């Protein structure tokens, strides 16, 4: 029940940070394109905070407008800025970008792809069948599905994905770049498997793994399917 007392509450969110150098630099555009292409489904309409620590521009409304257009092309929605100078902040406010504190970042080397490397949040639990056309994304955590995943459905997680049922759709683990993420499936009939941007389509899965319980892991930069629950054997990828 919403009351006056609880109408405005604190919230904690995991948001990606995009480091801006020169908003008009084509290399910036290319970098974003490349990053987005590596993690299908993850970047769709995602909110981002712009880190302006290494940015000399972004001091005018025109700069931000151009930047917003470019980000939108990559399906990213800027919601704020951090490490901004007073001038940058003034222009940012004029285009409805909020100020975020710079304290939450790790040494400013790589954006949140690394930050989500160890997802601390409790796994998300799904107990109803994931129907065709549905997309479930467990941001910053593992995903546990105790039901079948239909063809045409997508289950996505920054951490591991555990499916206690048949996987007939797509499973995308380590969506934020965590290469140690795995996919555990009770019955493999997947359309597509992906971990941290590397993927295997259904056709490429060896027939002996179909309908079987398997683990999928990224080993030496390749997606490997491990039959059963043995962690030590590494069979050839399908």
């Amino acid at each position, binding site marked *: 029940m919403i009351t006056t007392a609880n109408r405005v509450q604190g919230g904690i969110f995991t948001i990606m940070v995009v480091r801006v150098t020169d908003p008009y630099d084509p290399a910036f555009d290319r970098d974003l394109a490349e990053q987005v292409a590596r993690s299908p489904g993850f970047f769709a309409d995602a909110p981002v905070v712009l880190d302006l620590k290494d940015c000399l521009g972004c001091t005018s409304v025109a700069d931000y407008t151009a930047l917003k257009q470019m980000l939108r092309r990559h399906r990213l929605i800027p919601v704020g800025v951090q490490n901004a100078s007073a001038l940058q902040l003034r222009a940012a406010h004029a285009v409805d970008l909020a100020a975020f504190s710079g304290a939450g970042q790790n040494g400013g080397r790589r954006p949140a792809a690394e930050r989500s490397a160890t997802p601390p949040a409790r796994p998300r639990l799904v107990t*109803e069948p994931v*129907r*065709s*056309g549905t997309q479930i994304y467990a941001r910053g955590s593992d995903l546990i599905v105790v*039901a079948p995943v239909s063809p*045409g459905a997508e289950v996505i997680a920054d951490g591991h994905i555990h499916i206690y049922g048949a996987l*007939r759709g797509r499973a995308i683990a380590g969506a934020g770049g965590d290469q140690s993420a795995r996919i555990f499936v009770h019955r493999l009939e997947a359309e597509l498997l992906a971990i941290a941007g590397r993927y295997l389509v259904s056709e490429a899965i060896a027939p002996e793994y179909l309908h079987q319980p398997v683990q999928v892991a990224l080993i030496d930069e390749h997606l490997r399917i491990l039959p059963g629950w043995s962690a030590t054997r590494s069979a050839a990828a399908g």
Partner: protein
Amino acid sequence: MGKVIVVTSGKGGVGKTTTSAAVATGLALRGHRTVVIDFDVGLRNLDLVMGCERRVVFDFINVINGDANLNQALIRDKRIENLYVFPTSQTRDKDALKRDGVDRVMTELKKTFDYIICDSPAGIEHGALTALYHADSAIIVTNPEVSSVRDSDRIIGMLASKTRRAEKREKPVEEHLLLTRYSPERVRKGEMLSVDDVKEILSVPLLGIIPESETVLKASNTGMPVILDADSPAGRAYEDAVARFLGEQREMRFVMPERKNFLRGWFGRAAS
């Protein structure tokens, strides 16, 4: 207070209108005051299948727009007491289904009818979504064929998220799977998905299995819902389905291939 049943599928041409007509008739035959509504604006078929196409004066869209009231538009079935048909417009399209108009109509219908069957159009756009919005129950019509199963799965996903019950976090819509155009012989040959295959993929309780039957075409052409055809296996199967919907236990018929029996010629069709 009336119960709203949507007959939907996602895929087109699987038997929604045939089913809506048969189920509405079946419920009315059992004494329930029933109305069946055509939501397929622009491509209306329900009036043909119910045999009342020559008595349509006002339709669903007229009532939504306030050009006529409900009593002027509802058509009483000539054969069965308690059964009413609410046809839709052939000249307009799905955009004419205005949300508040539909809400008003449904509220009024719920006051005087026990069951309100909504015959949905195919697809997942405005027409289909409007048809399923008020549902308390859903009959998901599926052919034992891969495209139909995938589309049914999609529409089941929408029943869980795009209905009034889902929005208001009320008890979820009761889902019932109806397998239509089933041919046990083709299943045996491996040409068609079996009941178990479909049940496993969709995970929805099975309401009934309607066998493929020439009598369905005959029913459409004569404007007589197939459940009224005493010689039709499909009609018998619809009767079973209606019984199960009302809580009765009925064994699933028409699931096994018929054994060719030369004695048949002598003793006539065996009851199955």
